[in-house]
């Protein structure tokens, strides 16, 4: 056991003296997390999550303006005004889902309203959606406030027109609605806390780049093993009391330590700087990181054993980096690639690691949700390690 630790310590000493180690394991993932985060809109600022609703004012009176101002202040509706749009245009936008609904204020709406008659707004919407229910409620509440304000202003004007002219009374009545006697405080579950566009993009790119550059970083680890074999240092090791299995485990432990440390640093960076909620279920994130490090380290060991030169070690590291990262959804979420690609993507261990991390940081799932990804990663680790053992034994006998 002590020889395994001695070999691991020696490897770590060698790796920490190579600038490439830090470049691939820390600098590059941080840089690319920002770049990819930017590419996916991570820095567009907090998004407007209100429902987009078209607004066409054919009345153009102070009342229709008041209605527009009230709706514009809504927490639920985001008005999308464009006077050049025609009725068919607006219908098409709703049909395509670009707008949740369209509110049309018809000509003479204000006059009808002020006469206390049945003034009607025209609304284009898909009434089978939950969005419609929300919009309908918001519009009805706004009209109710307007109606109440008009009635109040009319009464106050009749009582004392000099001190309470209609416009003044109307404004005062509307303002009163800004501080209603009953208020509802809304809150969001911590499970969906990170789901806005900003942290959502980074919540994807952060684990993606972390995994991608963990694989890229294997080129330095693999080079240590290749150089050891090329310089016959491995053969010399085998003339000591160190066994072949001790040597492999020592190398494996070194790569694992390096990658797991990388994960810990980048998870902390993601949590505290990028606000990606890795630590919502810390033990789950830890388990995924542990199994992903086991898997990628075993891959590194296999690359080190397979490569015959430093150049091959670089090639053998970069090809899986691009292939497994791209296939596994490190760049583009597998959720948007379609079912078939997502299934193929799960041939890559990166996809399982992404699932594990995102189940916690994005999807708001519990510890149980990472058990399958962790098991898959551990399975890959065993396969890669056994292949490395077999390959080294075969190579040394030649």
């Amino acid at each position, binding site marked *: 056991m002590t020889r395994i630790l001695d070999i691991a310590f020696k490897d770590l000493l060698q790796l920490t003296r190579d600038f490439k180690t830090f470049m691939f394991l820390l600098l590059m993932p941080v840089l690319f997390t920002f770049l990819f985060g930017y590419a996916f809109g991570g820095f567009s600022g907090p998004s407007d999550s209100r429902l987009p609703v078209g607004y066409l004012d054919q009345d153009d009176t102070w009342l229709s303006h008041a209605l527009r101002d009230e709706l514009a202040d809504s927490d639920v509706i985001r008005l999308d005004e464009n006077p050049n749009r025609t009725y068919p245009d607006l219908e098409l936008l709703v049909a395509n889902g670009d707008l949740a609904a369209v509110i049309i204020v018809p000509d003479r709406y204000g006059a009808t309203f002020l006469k206390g008659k049945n003034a009607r707004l025209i609304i284009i919407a898909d009434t089978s959606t939950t969005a419609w229910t929300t919009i309908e409620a918001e519009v009805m509440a706004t009209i109710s406030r307007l109606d109440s304000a008009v009635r109040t202003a009319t009464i106050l004007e009749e009582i004392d027109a000099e001190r309470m002219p209609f416009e003044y009374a109307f404004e005062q009545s509307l303002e009163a609605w800004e501080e209603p006697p009953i208020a509802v405080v809304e809150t969001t579950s911590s499970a969906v806390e990170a789901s806005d566009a900003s942290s959502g993009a980074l919540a994807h790119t952060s684990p993606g780049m972390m995994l991608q550059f963990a694989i890229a970083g294997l080129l330095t680890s693999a080079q240590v093993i290749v150089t050891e074999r090329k310089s*016959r*240092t491995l053969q010399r090791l085998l003339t000591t*009391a160190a066994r072949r299995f001790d040597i492999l485990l020592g190398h494996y432990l070194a790569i694992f330590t390096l990658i797991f440390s990388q994960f810990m640093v980048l998870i902390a960076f993601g949590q505290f700087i990028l606000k990606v909620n890795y630590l919502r279920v810390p033990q789950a994130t830890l388990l995924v990181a542990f199994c992903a490090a086991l898997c990628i380290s075993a891959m590194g060991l296999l690359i080190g054993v397979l490569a015959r030169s430093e150049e091959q070690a670089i090639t053998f590291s970069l090809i899986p980096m691009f292939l497994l990262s791209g296939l596994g959804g490190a760049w583009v979420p597998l959720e948007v690639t379609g079912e078939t690609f997502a299934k193929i993507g799960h041939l890559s261990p990166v996809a399982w690691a992404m699932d594990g991390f995102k189940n916690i940081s994005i999807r708001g799932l519990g510890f149980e949700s990472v058990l399958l990804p962790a098991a898959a990663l551990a399975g890959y680790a065993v396969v890669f390690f056994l292949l490395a053992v077999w390959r080294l034994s075969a190579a040394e006998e030649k």
Partner: protein
Amino acid sequence: MTNSPAIEVLDLQRSFGDTKAVQGVSFEVRQGEIFSLLGPNGAGKTTTISMLSCLLRPDGGDAQVMGHSIREDPMGVKSVLGFVPQEIALYEDLTARENLTFWGKMYGLRGGALKARVEEVLDVIGLRDRAKERVGKYSGGMKRRVNIGVALLHKPQIIYMDEPTVGIDPQSRRNIVDSVVTLKDQGMTVLYTTHYMEEAQELSDQIGIMDHGKMIASGTHDQLVKLVGGQTRIDLTLNMEAGAVLEDWRAVEGVTQVSAEDGLVTVLVDDSNAVLPRLFDVTNRLAARITSVDILEPNLEAVFLHLTGRALRD
């Protein structure tokens, strides 16, 4: 030196695919002696030493190293030997002290004993002042010294040295040869492989000559030289094609063997003083002229030539 064997090799065999690298090699090395395996590249020296180090499993035969079988007890074998490979088998991004400390741990040394032994070895190889420098920055000769120092860390009873002087400058070669003699003086048994005849001749108590995976002769230097009958070798060049004189020279009294290569004619004779004038006479009769003469007393090169019909450098 004692008569008890340190290494007994019996009918060792090893093939790589269809290539028979080692074919039934047997020899014995006594404790405290230097035994050199001499032969051209590809003769099977490194394969033999790899099997004796338990790096390669033999296809056939066995060897006892200080009583441990390379087949049955490889860990026992490894515990008594230090191995100096042909390559610089060191970690170039670690310092000399870090290298020695790491290898000491691999040989099972720990704590104070390890620390003390590392400093001792640094003194032996003369690199204590530069022990903090990375090995990658050392000259070739310095690396070779560390390479040997690693094998000495656990005070082994036997040292294997696989062509330790390949590709280095004459001064470093001299240092290594001297250090091998020092090891012998300290009572170590040394198994040394080389394709440099001069090294084998200078260092060895016993020499085994290998060619094409076989041990074609072994013994002391004097015993081997007697194989060519104590004959003197004369190298000559002519002002014309050598082929024109070969048959006539072979017929000269006192000439036992004639061979030619790249314009150089090698003649083995019993008595160079008597034969050389006869060679000149024959050459004159053939209207040729000898342009250079080099007389070499009997040596291992001549032995190899005698046994294989080829020069060792081939």
